[in-house]
C-alpha cells in the first residue's frame, strides 16, 4: 500500500467553502462539535419532545441570542441548503439579519426571505404562516427549554418529573389560572404534549402558532445553547396544547385585518402610528405579507 491516506483530523479545515470565513471551519463549528450535536439531534428525533443534553459551545454571538438554534443550524446545514432566518416572523429584524450574515459568511450558503424557497428556516418566536413541507427543516431558538422550569427551578427535580411522566404540577398551574381568571392566561410558550408523552416548551412562539406544530410535514428541531439542550418533533407527530375538557385550547383572534395585505388569517402585530396611540395592524410574517401584496391583495392602508 503506497496510497497516502489523509488523517481525518488533519483535513478538517481544508474544505471550508471558498466563501467561508478564513481560519474557521465550514459553518464555524469544528467537526467534532458537529458530530456531538448531530448525535444529539438523532436521539432527539428518536425520543420526540425529550430534551437531550449536549455540550453546547460558546458561539461568537451571545447566549440568549440564538446560540442553540445557530449550533443546530450549523450542524445541519450543507452547501446546497437555502437558509431563511426570522425573528418575530420578520426577515429584516436586526438579530435575524445578524444570524443570516453569520451563516452567509461562515458557510457561504444561499439565503432567502421567501419561506417556500428555504430548506432550513431558523426562527425566533414564530412559525411562518405558509404551511411548511417535507423538504424543510424548522430550527427554533429556545431560551428556556424546560416547560416546568417556572414551576420547579431545579433540573434534578424536573428531570425526575419527565422520567416519571409526572406532569400534575403543570396541570395544577393551568387550572389555577382558570379558577382565578376564568381562562388560561399563558399567551406564548404555551406547553404542549408531544406524541402523548413528553410535555415540551414550544419556545416563546405565541399560542396562535401552536396548532401549526401538530403533525407538521417538516422536521422541527429546537436548540437551547445556554441551557445546553436539544429537542425535536419528527414530521407528522401529534403535538397537543395542554387544555381541559371544559376549557379547550384557543388561539388569539383579531377583529382587524392586516392593513397592508388584508390578511384575516395571520398573526398581527400592533403598530402605534402616532403619539396619541393610534394603532394599525400588520402581519408579523413579513414574507407572507409581501407575497400577498405581490399577488394583488391589499389592506385598507391603516389610519389615514
Amino acid at each position, binding site marked *: 500500500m503506497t496510497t497516502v491516506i489523509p488523517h481525518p*483530523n488533519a483535513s478538517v479545515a481544508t474544505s471550508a467553502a471558498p466563501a467561508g470565513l478564513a481560519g474557521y471551519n465550514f459553518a464555524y463549528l*469544528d467537526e*467534532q*462539535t458537529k458530530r*456531538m450535536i448531530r448525535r444529539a439531534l438523532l436521539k432527539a428525533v428518536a425520543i420526540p419532545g425529550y430534551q437531550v*443534553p*449536549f*455540550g*453546547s*459551545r*460558546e*458561539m461568537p454571538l*451571545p*447566549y*440568549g*441570542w440564538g*446560540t442553540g438554534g445557530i449550533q443546530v443550524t450549523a450542524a445541519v446545514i450543507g452547501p446546497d441548503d437555502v437558509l431563511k432566518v426570522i*425573528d*418575530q*416572523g*420578520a426577515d*429584516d*429584524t*436586526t*438579530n*435575524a*439579519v*445578524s444570524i443570516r*450574515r453569520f451563516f452567509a459568511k461562515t458557510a457561504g450558503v444561499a439565503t432567502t426571505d421567501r419561506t417556500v424557497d428555504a430548506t432550513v428556516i431558523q426562527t*425566533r*418566536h414564530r412559525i411562518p404562516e405558509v404551511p411548511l413541507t417535507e423538504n424543510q427543516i424548522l430550527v427554533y431558538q429556545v*431560551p428556556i427549554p424546560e416547560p416546568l422550569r417556572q414551576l420547579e*427551578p*431545579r*433540573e*434534578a427535580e424536573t428531570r425526575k418529573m419527565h422520567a416519571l411522566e409526572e406532569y400534575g404540577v403543570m396541570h395544577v398551574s393551568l387550572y389555577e389560572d382558570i379558577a382565578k*381568571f376564568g*381562562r388560561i*392566561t399563558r*399567551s*406564548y410558550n404555551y406547553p404542549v404534549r408531544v406524541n402523548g408523552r413528553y410535555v415540551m416548551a414550544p419556545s*416563546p*412562539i*405565541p399560542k*396562535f402558532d401552536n396548532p401549526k406544530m401538530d403533525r407538521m410535514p417538516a422536521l422541527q428541531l429546537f436548540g437551547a445553547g*445556554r441551557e*445546553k439542550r436539544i429537542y425535536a418533533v419528527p414530521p407528522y407527530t401529534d403535538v397537543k396544547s395542554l387544555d381541559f375538557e371544559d376549557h379547550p385550547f384557543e388561539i*388569539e383572534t*383579531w377583529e382587524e385585518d392586516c*392593513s*397592508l395585505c388584508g390578511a384575516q388569517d395571520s*398573526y*398581527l*402585530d400592533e*403598530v402605534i402610528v402616532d403619539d396619541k396611540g393610534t394603532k*394599525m395592524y400588520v402581519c*408579523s410574517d*413579513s414574507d407572507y405579507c409581501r407575497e400577498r401584496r405581490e399577488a394583488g391583495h391589499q389592506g385598507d*392602508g*391603516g389610519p389615514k
Partner: protein
Amino acid sequence: MYVAVKGGDRAIENSQKLLDEERRGDPRVPELSLDQIREQMSLAVDRVMTEGSLYDPELAALAIKQARGDLVEAIFLLRAYRTTLPRFGVGEPIDTAKMAVRRRISATYKDLPGGQLLGASFDYTHRLLDFALAAGDERPVAEIAPEGVESGMQHVADILDHEGLIEREDPDDENQPVFDLTRESPRYPADRAARLQNLARGDEGWLLALGYSTQRGYGNNHPFAGEIRVGEVAVEFAPEELGFPIEIGEITVTECEMVNQFKGSAQVPPQFTRGYGLTFGHCERKAMGMALVDRALRARDFGEATEAPAQDEEFVMAHSDNVEASGFVQHLKLPHYVDFQAELVTVRALRRKAEAARAIADAAE
C-alpha cells in the same frame, strides 16, 4: 402610509463602524498597545484569562482592547475564540507544592516552614489616589533579596494532615476520564470536579458575593485562610506517541486553601475540612471567594444542612457564568413584540371580562 421598518443590515454595519470609532476614542491620544495592556493592566488580563478559561496573556490583552475595557465582554471574546481551538488532550495535574512562589501567606500560623512571603500586594497600601502617578511613573525598582525563596513549599493543609486533623483528600483515579464542563452538559447532583470547574470559570463578583454571604450567616462554614499562594508552576503533557509527560510551559496561578472547622457527624470525627480555589494569573479575591463557595457546596457531603444560597449547587452553578448571564439578561433588548402582542390580547380580554363582571355587579345594586 405605514411601511414596515427595513434596513437591519445597514443599521448593523453603521453601528459597528461607530463602535470602532468609540473604542479608539480621541485619535490624538496614542493608541494602546497589547504590550501596554498586558504589562500595565495585568490583573485585568489575569481575570480575563481565568474566566475566559484560556491562558494566553496576549490574546486576553487583545480582548480587553477590543472590548474597550469591558472585562465581561473580553471574557466572552476569549471564550468564543477558545471553543474553536483544537484539543490535543488532557494535561497532567499541575503540582502547586512545586510552585516557584512569589507570594504566600497563611492566617492560621504565625510562621511556618518556607515562611510567610508578602510579595506584591495591595493589602497594606493606603488607598490614597496617587497624584504623582498621574503625572508619570518614575519610582525606584524593588530591591532584590540577598537570598532566594525556598523552592517547593509544603502546603499548610499538609501540615495539619500529619496530625490527622484535616480531612484527607485522595486524588481521583488517573485512569478515569475527567469530566469536562466545556464539552458536556452538567448533571446534577454534580461531583466536586464539575463544581470546581464551574467555579473556576465563574464570575468573580458572583463568587465574592456568595462567599461573603456565608460569612454573614447564610451557610457559615467557619473558614480560616489556611494558605494563599501565587507563583509559577510547570505544565506537563504526555503525548500519546511518547507515553511520558514533557514540560510544555509555565503558567502563573493563584491558589487558596481555606481550612474550615467541622464539628463532626455520626460517621466523621471532628476535624478540619477544606475549601479550594484556583485561578490563572493573580486573582486573589476570586480564589478566596471560590474556596468559600467550594466549601459551602460540600455541605451535602458532610451531612450539613443545605439551606443557604451558597450551599445550593444548582443555584450556584447555573448562575455563575457571566457569559451566559450577560447574554441572557441582555437578550431582553431583542424584539419581543410578538409575545408582547399575545400578552396585549390576553390582558385586554381579561380586562373586558373584569369590566363586564363589574357592570353586572353595578346593575344588581
